[in-house]
């Protein structure tokens, strides 16, 4: 009985070991990113030495990426997991990581690449009580909407790739430097282009735009959500409208994953311009890369801000 059992199990175990073994030398590094902006940055730094899969496609709420079982085998074979951090992925990543059974990419392991160290977070809550909504205890995690702070993510990705494949460090460094140079040139261009946005206020559905506003001098007047993750009450909508009228707030931002009904209503009542802005590459058409996404955001906001007179 025992020998039969061993004869049955041995090939199974051997097959499992073979499949779970580290990839052959020279094979691209298998990287899974949580969001599409990180996927774009990873491809930029990794070049042909990485094979990148993003759990999000770009149209999802960053807090509502579905926990698909099809992600589990992909995570199981990943060598690196790149994430935003600051609790951005708390709604889906912990369960997926547990189901993946991949010790290499668990929290605290070298394959767990948190891009948030070095970011000074905005809006660190004084209380994590649920009366404040679904707050992020470590602060607002949407720092990737600030292209200057995105450079921090690029550095973390570079360090992780270099540690994973030291023989390609020079190539990663070259790619990183080239991308950072391109990004810095675009930042200068955006800051020039966005000068008319200084001091312009706007309302967004969710509190995703704090870092962006700070970078480009805009003012976040408020959010349509009553609190993070809590839909607005009629009273809150009324207060937003009154406040926008009093302060002449000219723009309402609707992120693609939220319904249009309430933002459109607020825009109609206040005379503000309603704009749909992606929060990840791929959120709207023609924003497949991080730079294309930021280009779209800046140009759309500049076009939406009120003309003098």
């Amino acid at each position: 009985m025992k020998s039969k059992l061993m004869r049955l199990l041995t090939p199974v175990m051997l097959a499992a070991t073979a499949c779970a073994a580290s990839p052959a030398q020279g094979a691209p590094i298998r990287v899974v990113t949580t969001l599409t902006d990180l996927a774009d940055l990873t491809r930029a730094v990794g070049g042909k030495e990485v094979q990148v899969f993003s759990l999000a496609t770009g149209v999802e709420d960053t807090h509502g990426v579905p926990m698909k079982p099809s992600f589990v085998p992909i995570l199981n074979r990943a060598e690196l997991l790149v994430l935003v951090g600051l609790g951005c992925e708390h709604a889906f990543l912990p369960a997926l990581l547990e189901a993946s059974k991949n010790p290499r990419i668990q929290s605290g392991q070298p394959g767990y690449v948190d891009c948030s160290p070095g970011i000074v977070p905005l809006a660190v809550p004084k209380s994590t009580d649920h009366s404040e909504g679904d707050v992020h205890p470590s602060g607002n995690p949407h720092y990737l909407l600030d292209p200057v702070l995105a450079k921090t993510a690029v550095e973390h990705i570079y360090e992780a790739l270099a540690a994973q494949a030291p023989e390609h460090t020079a190539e990663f460094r070259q790619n990183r430097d080239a991308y950072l140079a391109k990004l810095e040139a675009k930042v200068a261009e955006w800051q020039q282009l966005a000068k008319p946005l200084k001091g312009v206020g706007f309302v967004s559905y969710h509190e995703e735009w704090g870092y962006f506003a700070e970078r480009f001098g805009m003012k976040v007047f408020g959010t349509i959500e009553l609190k993070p993750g809590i839909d607005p009450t009629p009273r809150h909508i009324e207060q937003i409208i009154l406040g926008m009228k009093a302060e002449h707030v000219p723009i309402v931002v609707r992120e693609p994953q939220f319904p249009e009904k309430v933002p459109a209503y607020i825009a109609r009542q206040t005379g503000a311009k309603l704009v749909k802005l992606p929060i990840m590459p791929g959120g709207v058409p023609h924003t497949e890369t991080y730079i294309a996404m930021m280009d779209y955001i800046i140009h759309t906001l500049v076009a939406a801000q009120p003309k003098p007179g």
Partner: protein
Amino acid sequence: MKFTRLIGWSSTLCLGAILAQAQETNEVEKLNQQLKQIRETFEKQQRELKESFERMFREQQAQIEALKRQLASATNAAAGLAQTNQAAAADQLKELNQKVDQVVEAQKKVRPSEFNPSIGFVGETVLAYRSKGSEATGSERRGGFDAFQRSMELNIAASVDPFAKGYAVINATADSATGEATLGIEEAALQTTSLPWNLELKAGRFFGEFGRLAYIHDHELPFVNRPLVLDRYIGGESKTDGLQLNWLPPIAHYTSLTLGLGDQFGDNPNNPGTYRPFSELNFFGRASTYFDLTPDWQLEAGMSGLWNPRTQDRAGVQVQPNGSTLTERERRLAGLDLKVSYVPLRNNQFRSLVWGTELLFSDNRYLFDPDGSLAPGNPTAHPGWPGLSGDEFMGGVGALGLYSYVTYKWHRQWSAGFLFDWVQNAQNHNDETSAYSPYLTWAISHWNQLRLQYTHTDHNAVSGLRPDDAIYLQWAWIIGSHAHGWQQR
């Protein structure tokens, strides 16, 4: 001659001298005049030079004075600018310090409880009205108006070490008869986190993996009450004390295989005798897989099995309506589950559609006692079991049961659905019960939910029970830590 020559020469010499002298005098005068001119010129030049120098000096002095004045005003401006820059830098430094302080404060907040596990508490209240009393419905709860705390559940979880995590679910439920809360350990288990070969081991008390909803806690169900087939064939949640091994085959397509064993499976304890052989354990398992039909449509399917070779008297001696008794001696249960979901990527928090179905086949073996000589509550069988009259025989009863539900969500807060139940009695497949339950859920927030459900239950005549109607209002809430577990996907 000589004198004349002498006078001549002398005169000539004198004349010459005089002439010379005159010439000299002229020349001297000229020279003097030249000198005078030169001197005058020199003096004039000196004067001019002096005047020029004096003028230059005055001009330079004036320039110096002007420069001094400019320097003085520039110094004042620079001092003011430096002051302004210093003030701006101080403001920036203050702002930066505030930000850093916020972060440090946020870190300090967790420090006192740094080693505490994640703790959360779930409260669930059910208000109900049933049109018939419990004697007519077979329900353990009374008919008419009823209000009870179905769950008062404390959840605790933390990593044990780099290799495992532990969790516990301590629940108190209001007793149906007295209303007093009965505290119990629903789950308390250790789960490995770093086994090789994609293995995961769970040990302790936990809800064993069987089907789709058997291991889901009551308050997390998509409707108010557990489906009839799960209640009757499993005995509530799939509680077991034992071991469970899960394997994720290393293939590109998601497949999950689970095997487990435990000394019970469900609410009813098994074999409370003095010795439990291996054959009296419960063996269970599930194989499941998943398909992305489209980016927005998903299908998940599974099949499950449960076998207890020698249950002895899991539910005790069961008296049948005709007076005979059945005592379970072998437990066999198989199930198929299917879930099809529409979860649009773009706004899945605001819209979704889920259809879930499970079909279970129970094929237990019983000790039949036609004359009912075995009184309920007798201890498990050994030769010489009190009450044996000789007419007892072993036989099997096959029974089917299923549930099927659809839930449609059209708003982050609102969803509605319908649940259909149908189940044959595991001891008498002629005894059938069906139920129809529309429900409406209002998720006030992520941690606060109200659900209204109507249930019409039908029994066929074999059961001797009466149809009834019930309305339930369920209020479930969570405080503290909450985790989106894999089972809640």
